[in-house]
């Protein structure tokens, strides 16, 4: 992977109240790579993701997106940073009063000058990409959790941002849909150069798509391993990391 960092996390510490969750970590995410954040339950993966997208300010440190600090940016500068990213939340977070098509069309309506027919077509293409053709007119309450998740990915991709953050995208999906989603992620990353930052536990997905993985350990509150998933499984010097991959691989 080329060393062209699109995201730089520097000296980052996250804390809730006085309770430090992640302690002084630094890493880069390179442009066009599929970057996976991994770790045991409660190690702060989703916390890290939420800080990276600017939802919470870190206790200390900087988060640079294309060289701009999302923590200190405000006004137009912050909006410009936010337009470079798309986020899929763990629960989907679709707007319940809108159809799936309206959910995906919303960012296109607000941030582009595309004519109405174009917005509708692009939104339908996004839904088609995640396998939701035919469900455009349904409300989120009328579809399953897995479908909601896929619709949320379609919404996150609506403006084709350069960076997509996905929080547990495969959880709750059947293996076929999950594999289809993996293929989509790879095509978007390789075809359009989109950078993916993904929090997931699904080892088959990680082996299929991840260019690089970081592993957080809640005992030390730091990154304990960085590398390709296969290398970490086979050659990591940290026994917990090897155990993590092998044990989950064995049960997967």
């Amino acid at each position, binding site marked *: 992977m080329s060393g062209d960092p699109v995201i730089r996390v520097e000296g980052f510490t996250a804390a809730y109240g006085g309770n430090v969750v992640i302690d002084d970590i630094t890493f880069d995410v390179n442009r066009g790579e599929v970057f996976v954040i991994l770790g045991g339950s409660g190690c702060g993966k989703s916390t890290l993701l939420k800080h990276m997208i600017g939802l919470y300010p870190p206790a200390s440190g900087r988060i640079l997106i294309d060289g701009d600090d999302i923590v200190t940016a405000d006004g137009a500068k912050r909006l410009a940073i936010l337009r470079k990213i798309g986020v899929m939340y763990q629960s989907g977070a679709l707007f319940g009063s809108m159809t799936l098509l309206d959910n995906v069309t919303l960012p296109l309506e607000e941030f582009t000058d595309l004519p109405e027919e*174009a917005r509708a077509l692009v939104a339908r293409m996004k839904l088609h*990409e995640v396998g939701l053709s035919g469900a455009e007119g349904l409300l989120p309450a009328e579809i399953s959790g897995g479908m909601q998740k896929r619709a949320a990915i379609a919404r996150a991709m609506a403006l084709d941002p350069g960076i997509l953050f996905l929080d547990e995208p495969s959880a709750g999906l059947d293996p076929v849909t999950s594999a289809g989603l993996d293929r989509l992620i790879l095509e978007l990353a390789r075809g*359009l150069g989109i950078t993916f930052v993904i929090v997931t536990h699904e080892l088959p997905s990680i082996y299929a798509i991840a260019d690089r993985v970081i592993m957080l350990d809640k005992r030390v509150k730091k990154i304990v391993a960085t590398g390709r998933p296969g290398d970490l499984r086979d050659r990591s010097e940290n026994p917990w990391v090897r155990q993590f991959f092998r044990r989950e691989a064995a049960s997967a």
Partner: protein
Amino acid sequence: MPPATRESPEAVVRALRRPRELTLALDGRFDSHTTGGAWREAMAHIAGADPNDAVVVDASGVGYCDGCGLGLLLEIRRRRPDARIAGLRDETARLLARFSADDFAAKPKHAPADGFVAAVGRATAQTAADLVAQVAYVGELLLALFAAVRSPGKVRWRDAFSAADAAGVGAIPIIGLIGFLIGLILAFQSAIPLKQFGAEIFVANLVSISLVRELGPLMTAIIVAGRSGAAFAAEIGTMRVNEEVNALSTMGLSPVRFLVVPRVLAGILVMPLLSLFTDLAGLVGGAIVFRSLGFPLVTFVNQISTAVTWVDLSGAVFKSLVFGVIVAAIGCLRGLQVKTGASAVGRAATRAVVSGLVLIILTDGVFSVLFYVLGI
């Protein structure tokens, strides 16, 4: 013919018209921010082209092309299935190959809208089902309340006191302010006509009887319905959305006993007390006006003690108690009726207030007739 050019720094469409052929040359970056103008221009050229002319899209100048750019190419294919797209980069061609114009030929299906007859039928069935649910709910609530009286130890008193604190103590400032102002206004308004007959002294009687018998309980119930009835509906509605109510049911716990009874008991506890507080605040307001009319406060107290009896006060307390049950029970019912979604929680809060107000006024009317017949 010279090419028609749209000046754009990023996404450019040039139309080249030759005999029997229209060539659209696309140049630049086609993304969500740049494609809008290019889209309109390309569609205008396609619409203006002779249907018998061939359409060629020269995409050799296309650099970055994301979903919007792909949408443009797909729309050209949709409008002119015979269009030939040439010069597309391999990676863009691969992404475009994921879509077929046929996939988007039909309009997206929406749920069919009801006709008039179907809408009336659906509304009637909904109302009937709502009534049945309300009767069942009232029955279940009464049983749960009787069970609470028989076994007070099984009541979740901590929840009840917490709800009473939120609905009661938290409401004191607004209740005090509204009660004070109502007493003040009543006294001022009544002083004008009574002065014509030299009967200003009866301002005290009018204010005290109005407040104690009617306005105190009624205004308190209205404020609590708007404040706490809506809060109960939103709280329980959110629990429904989060499947917490389902979790209770599957644990074998009755949502009515667990969630509704504590809140109804809180309503029974705080509504009479708040009503008395409204009376007190109103009387203070009335006393200020009465004093400004030149009467000593002792006269105000004497007039009240002759005008308002213990029967009036007991009737008002009982009425408040019933209002407390209504406000809490209807708020919880609307919360339990939520199915999914944030908007459903909002609707539940609105319905809790509206239903609460209607039921309060209806019940107040029934009490008025009853008190009249009983001569209270």
